[in-house]
């Protein structure tokens, strides 16, 4: 791994982030949307690690642990909301959740 330049990691994480963004925009199932958001967060984690390695800072890796904690809490809350939605509506299709319109 030692020879891989930092730019490669940054480009990769940019691509992963973009895939996540596109997924959020085109998918209709909240769980899949949610997975795409997690992909975005993990792309950022990769950026942090790559930059931390490049600058020889320990900070970069430290931030990743913070972000992972935040992401775990986000999973817990997101799944909780989705379960609650399913209980009262028996569907989780995002298109059917549109009582309020602009």
């Amino acid at each position, binding site marked *: 791994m030692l*020879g891989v330049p*930092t730019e490669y990691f940054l480009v990769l994480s940019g691509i992963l982030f973009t895939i996540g963004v596109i997924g959020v925009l085109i998918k209709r199932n909240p769980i899949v949307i949610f997975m795409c958001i997690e992909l975005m967060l993990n792309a950022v984690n990769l950026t942090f690690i790559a930059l931390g390695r*490049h600058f020889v800072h320990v900070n970069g890796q430290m931030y990743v642990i913070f972000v992972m904690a935040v992401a775990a*809490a986000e999973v817990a809350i997101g*799944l909780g909301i*989705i379960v609650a939605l399913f209980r009262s509506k028996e569907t989780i299709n995002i298109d059917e959740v549109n009582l309020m319109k602009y």
Partner: protein
Amino acid sequence: MPADQSSDFSYLAVVVFTFVGIAFIAFNLLLARLLSPSAPTPEKLTTYECGVQPIGDAWRQFNPRYYLFALLFVVFDVEAVFLYPWAVAFRQVGAFAVAEMLIFVGLLIAGLIFAWRREALQWE
């Protein structure tokens, strides 16, 4: 860009390995297809030769209730991520680290008690 870690790592090896790997598997599958006798019976074509007959398709929606357990799991799963660096740096940081980790685990236990008393752990 610091002149880091010179680029003596060659991607050629990766490419060669990829092709060798694909060729190896393709060759063996082809060989098996050519050499083995083929005598399919209905019994042999079932997914499991013994046990309960599978009903329906494997591609079906799971009951979202499973997610309730998944989310309780996730919380304690990440706890382990924190415990590892803590355990590694434990000797250098000392008593302060013990107090911090006790608070952290205590908070998670408080959450678990709350979930338990609210009967979140029961299958309805």
